């Protein structure tokens, strides 16, 4: 007979209420958004009366979950950039030349004179030795300076491949090292772009890697893609300063030639620094994650010759003092100088993990974009167009909603009303889920919702039609309802699984707006099946228990 356990009833209603609870802030979009922005600002930048007031526009005890609006709805700029990862190989080979030369000079008796061949292909180091018979010794000497690749996937691989042809020795990066280098190049570019974009303080920019060597950048609210390109192209400013005090606060007075700089990690810590930098990012040629003598993660860096001279002089005169590495007016690190660093390269040790040392190396190198970027795709959507689309979508949704509601009541009477309540809950649940998972609503996504509204009644229609049929064979209303649900289930199941498959494929292969559509369609299928099978049924059962009708009309 028609029975649903009490705990199931509670659970079903609880799910519906939770969905509505998380969905309803979307009804007050601009207010909640203002609140969320203000809260984020207070957290990041400290509290001001205006921010507190803005935060108070939406009470804290209410949920503040919102559906993100895609670029096509909010307006903004979208760029797809390809990073020219090969650019980096040439620089790397230049860096190796000194080491290779020194290694060969050490075996001068066997190899004779050593000379770099200038017109080598990009990313290859070609070296001529005057004694071709000495090639085996030369190869051995150069191979001995190869370093293990620092990456998670290639353990034991070396960073360079060395081969000889007659009197010519060819040094290239190994495939593993190229992969690791590419990966670092992209990471670095992402990091720089993220910093650049954050600087303009726009809301929720999307900056993500796509495929092997591409970066997708979406910035809502920015005027045009050209502006965004100009912003990303700007070089980062990296400087090294002597530290006057590492115990400053935001209120510390600065004297002449002094500057107050906030710490990158701990926003409450400030450093008092000398305004004049000792060195800048332009003097840095490389920074790599590595390990110190004790095997702990560290970051090694290298200056160019003039930088090395200045740095050597400074560190010899200031042993025991602190020097700060400042990026974009924030202190990345301020280590103590333990000993004079004269070789032009140094190592920063500290409380690092492999990740954090890699991160810091990325930051240290973040002075300039590591490689050039070409832009493959750019889109600018004006905010007016987005607003027009939202308005049109909203009207269409309401009309569609109204039409379907009327149609269902006309067709199925009371049962149609149940289906309609379920439909309202369905849309509520859909928005609730979208808000909680932070999905992005796009214009095709709105179409997905409208389509869901149309299709959501399908499961109910299947059940109601089946109940009608079962009523014809006169088994009594309770049995007919039970059979109706039971027998319609396989059709509902198969029909929705197949539709869900297409949503998954769309999600996997689509991008941008299409992905947004796939998300609303997929979630819409799940919520509509839930509301049709559980919610409508529960309503019918509850109604049936109260009224105990002898006959029913569907």
């Amino acid at each position, binding site marked *: 007979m028609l029975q649903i356990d009490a705990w199931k009833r509670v659970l079903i209603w609880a799910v519906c209420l939770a969905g509505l609870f998380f969905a309803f802030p979307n009804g007050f979009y601009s207010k909640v958004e203002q609140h969320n922005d203000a809260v984020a600002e207070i957290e990041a930048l400290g509290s001001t009366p205006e921010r507190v007031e803005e935060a108070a526009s939406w009470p804290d005890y209410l949920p503040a979950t919102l559906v993100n609006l895609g670029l096509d709805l909010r307006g903004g700029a979208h760029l797809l950039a390809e990073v020219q990862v090969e650019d980096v190989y040439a620089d790397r080979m230049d860096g190796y030349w000194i080491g290779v030369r020194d290694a060969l000079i050490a075996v001068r008796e066997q190899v004779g004179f050593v000379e770099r061949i200038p017109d080598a292909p990009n990313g290859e180091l070609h070296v001529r030795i005057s004694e071709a018979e000495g090639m085996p010794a030369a190869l051995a000497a150069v191979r001995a300076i190869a370093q293990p690749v620092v990456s998670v996937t290639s353990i034991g691989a070396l960073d360079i491949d060395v081969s000889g042809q007659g009197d010519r020795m060819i040094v290239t990066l190994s495939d593993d090292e190229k992969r690791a280098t590419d990966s670092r190049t992209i990471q670095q570019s992402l990091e720089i772009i993220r910093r650049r974009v954050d600087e303009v303080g726009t809301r929720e920019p999307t900056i993500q890697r796509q495929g092997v060597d591409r970066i997708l950048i979406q910035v809502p609210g920015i005027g045009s893609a050209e502006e965004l390109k100009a912003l990303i192209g700007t070089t980062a400013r990296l400087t090294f300063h002597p530290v006057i005090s590492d115990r400053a606060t935001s209120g510390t007075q600065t004297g002449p030639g002094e500057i107050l700089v906030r710490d990158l990690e701990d926003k409450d810590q400030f450093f008092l620094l000398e305004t004049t930098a000792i060195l800048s990012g332009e003097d840095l040629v490389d920074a790599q994650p590595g390990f110190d003598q004790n095997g702990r993660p560290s970051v090694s860096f290298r200056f160019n010759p003039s930088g090395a001279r200045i740095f050597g002089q400074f560190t010899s005169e200031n042993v025991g003092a602190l020097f700060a590495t400042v990026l974009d007016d924030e202190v990345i690190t301020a280590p103590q100088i333990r000993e004079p660093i004269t070789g032009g390269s140094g190592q920063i040790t500290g409380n690092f993990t492999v990740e954090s040392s890699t991160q810091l190396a990325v930051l240290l190198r973040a002075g300039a974009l590591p490689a050039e970027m070409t832009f493959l795709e750019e889109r600018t959507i004006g905010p007016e167009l987005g607003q027009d689309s939202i308005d049109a979508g909203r009207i269409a949704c309401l009309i569609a909603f109204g039409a379907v509601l009327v149609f269902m009541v006309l067709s199925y009477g009371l049962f149609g009303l149940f289906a309609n309540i379920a439909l309202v809950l369905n849309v509520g649940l859909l928005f609730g889920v979208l808000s909680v998972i932070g999905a992005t609503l796009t214009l095709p996504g709105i179409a997905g919702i409208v389509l869901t509204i149309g299709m959501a009644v399908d499961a109910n229609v299947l059940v109601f039609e089946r109940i009608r049929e079962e009523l014809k064979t006169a088994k009594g209303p309770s049995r007919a309802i039970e059979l109706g649900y039971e027998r319609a289930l396989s059709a509902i199941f198969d029909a929705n699984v197949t539709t869900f498959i297409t949503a998954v494929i769309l999600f996997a292969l*689509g991008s941008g707006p299409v992905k947004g559509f796939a998300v609303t369609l997929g979630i819409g299928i799940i919520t509509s099946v839930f509301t049709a099978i559980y919610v409508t049924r529960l309503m019918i059962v509850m109604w049936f228990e109260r009224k105990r009708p002898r006959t029913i009309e569907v």
Partner: protein
Amino acid sequence: MRLRLVPAETNFDFFRYRKITMGASIASVIASILLWLFVGLNFGIDFRGGTTIRTEAAQPVDVADYRSAVESLDLGDVSISEVFDPTFGDDQNVSMIRIQAQEGQESVAGDVIGQVLAALQAIDPSLKFTSVESVGPKVSGELIKTAIIAVAAALAAILIYIWLRFEWQFSVGAVAALFHDVIVTIGIFSVLQIRFDLATIAALLTIVGYSINDTVVIFDRLRENLRKFKTTPLKDVMNKSVNETLSRTLMTSGTTLLALFALLILGGDVIRGFVFAITWGVIVGTYSSVYVAKNVVLALGVKRDWSKPTDGGGGAGTQFANIDA
């Protein structure tokens, strides 16, 4: 009094004109393929690269003026069209300008776009550019590939799923119907020269999803009736199944079309192409569920010794059929 789209009992013979309907379906698929090949599709920049600029002005659009401004820059093929929409206000005069991908450029050249915008602004300083989109030829080639993979993957996944849940004949019938829907939709896009872009591919996949939904519901009833009426000729069982589910088919198509028409008329011109594709697909999909999928299954025949519904593991095709009982 209830609204009934069809009488409570129907007894249409859906297979009476099956040669005609099947012939019409095949003919329209062939016609669509020919149109696709010889007339071609109006590909958007997603698929062939280039730039589209959407302008909005208070003054009426003078296409000739715009054209002379842009053509003076010598950018090759430029198309300019005015956009009309019932949702626009009186002071909204919208045009779309499309510029082909520039020869020998793999990426998007920002200065070219800048020149075009400046040239247009010179005619009408109040002109606003509500959207500017550029896709380089490198990406557009990849997007085509991804789109084809997406549609093929969807068809393959459905083929396998239906095969597991039903029988291979059903699976072939369902995919034939989907193939029909996709091709005929491409055909109408070719005839009407509606812009074919990434959103259209999303629409095609939605059509696939909707159409299979419809097909599966009828298949499900057919599976049930085949168990019930073991000796009735296949054609009659099919007719009975289609008639029994007719009311549901029309109800669901009806509500979906109600929603889609609202969006088609009021949803604005930006997604009109997308919504049109889905609306068309729902109509074609409803037709193909009855006339293509069933006809193919009828032509292929099915095995008739279906096990009882309560009996688990009765043959390869039904082994998953009872998990939802």
